[in-house]
């Protein structure tokens, strides 16, 4: 089946809207080279499913697709455990952070919480659209966001308090792993 001209137009219109935000979304979560690959995957899904993309929440819908493609990509990459270990530092985008305490607090949250917070603060989505990305109800998204912000604040305050006596506990923890 070949796409109808109006589908092509619609796809092109969508691309102009989401192309750059999608790149940001991906670069925030994976290295540049992989981000390019995944972008191609996302565009292909958009092309296949152009009829399914909701006009009122196209970007959130595309983020949702990107999220799935990203997970696939990671699964593929992570099969080669040793390689990943070596590349671990490259896979996660490094953040030129002038707020190391907040970043540390964020990193200590479970991935699900981090993703909700990223979608909220970086993609700047309201809970309604976070729900679309994650494939959950708007209600569940609000609840998750609420919990995640609460956890982050708690983690941040905790970090601030333990900062002065030194990092003894954390250092111990790191050594234990090795």
């Amino acid at each position, binding site marked *: *089946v*070949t*796409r109808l001209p109006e589908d*092509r137009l619609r796809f092109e219109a969508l*691309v*102009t809207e989401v*192309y*750059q935000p999608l*790149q*940001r979304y991906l*670069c925030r979560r994976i290295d540049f080279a992989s981000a390019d690959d995944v*972008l*191609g995957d996302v*565009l*292909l*899904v*958009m*092309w*296949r*499913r152009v*009829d*399914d993309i*909701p006009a009122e929440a196209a970007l959130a*819908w595309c983020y*949702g*697709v990107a999220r799935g493609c990203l997970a696939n990509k990671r*699964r593929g990459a*992570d*099969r080669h455990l040793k390689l*990943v270990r070596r590349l671990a530092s490259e896979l996660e*985008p490094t*953040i*030129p952070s*002038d*707020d190391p305490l*907040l970043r540390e607090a*964020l*990193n*200590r949250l*479970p991935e*699900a919480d981090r993703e909700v*917070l990223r979608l909220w*603060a*970086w993609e700047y989505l309201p809970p309604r659209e976070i729900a*679309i990305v994650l*494939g*959950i*109800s*708007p209600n*569940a998204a609000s609840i998750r966001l609420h919990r995640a912000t609460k956890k*982050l*604040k708690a983690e*941040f305050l905790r970090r601030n308090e*333990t900062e002065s006596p030194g990092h003894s*506990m*954390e250092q111990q*923890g*790191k050594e*234990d*792993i090795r």
Partner: protein
Amino acid sequence: MSSDEDLRARLSQIDPFPTSVPVDPFTSPKSQDILKGVMATQIHEKNQKYSHGRWRKPSLLTAVAAAVVAFGIVALGVTSGGPINPTKGKTTLVLKLPGGGTSLQAGGITSTQSASCVGFSVPYLREVPMAFAGTVTAVSDRTVPTLSDMTVTLRVDHWYKGGTADVVTLTTLTSHALTPTTSAGVEDGVEFVQGKRYLVTATNGTVNGCGFTGEATPELEKAFAEAFGPATAATHPPSLVCPSSLAGVHPGSRLGQLVPSAPERVVFCKYAGSNEKVKYGTLIRFAAMLNPSTLAALLNQAKFVPDGSAYSCPIDFNALDAIVFLKAKKITTLVIHTWGCGWTASTNTSGTWRLSKAARSELRKLDPTISR
């Protein structure tokens, strides 16, 4: 960081790719190459089976077919809401899926004709006269979204309230084509997918929407448990099975014993991490022939890790094991992170614990990825 907005602003400061950092425009030669390639791809209409998201907007409803029944569909037919028909020794109850123009009735709150939603809350939920949990065993197979006689059959595993039937059939009886209602009304569409488990409420024989019915997520289960009492209060003892997903298990901060001592039964469950071939979080295998007391004793050697001393995990593939204990009709689920933080364990009330060496080595027999 007093308000959420402050937090949001501060978080945006650590965004590695803020809008001030330029990215490739779609007009660049590289982008155009990618797009050309994509747009040259042939489409197989049958490919449109990906299910993305369970919550659809009205414009999407037209694409929802086959295995999907969404709320917000005009249903003119009226099915009996109560009577229980005995069939083959099993009792069946028929409920109606709500019509687009009809109101949501929840907790005695009747919404307006435009089917706007009453906000989901536990107190409202508590007032609902009928609530159960069940797994979809069949969805009427329609390939064209005309939605006549759409039915969904659920095998009930737990009645929270208002019924005893073993099987519940949800049905939309309509001879009318699909008519999207106001956007507000169908925002909370629920897809019923075969094999998935749902928590369903109904009022006067009609299924409630607006978040009062949905897939059995940990959030929804928690709300149902809060409203109607825990599902473990069933008449028969709870079955000891591996949970289908461990999403939403959060460490708490209460000190005490990690798992109940001398439990009656135990089952060990292994879930896929992000480095597995199967979908992340899938249950890979489980082991049930274990000595519950020995395992519990080993696990209870664990030391509590105080708050504020969270360990950082350099490489964590998020692989999880769960050990489910049954004691005195109560189920305790212990979650163990196997990589990176391989020695931490948590139940939903117990916070982070460090497993003893002996426990770790015993558990490695069940899951070799548990770190030393």
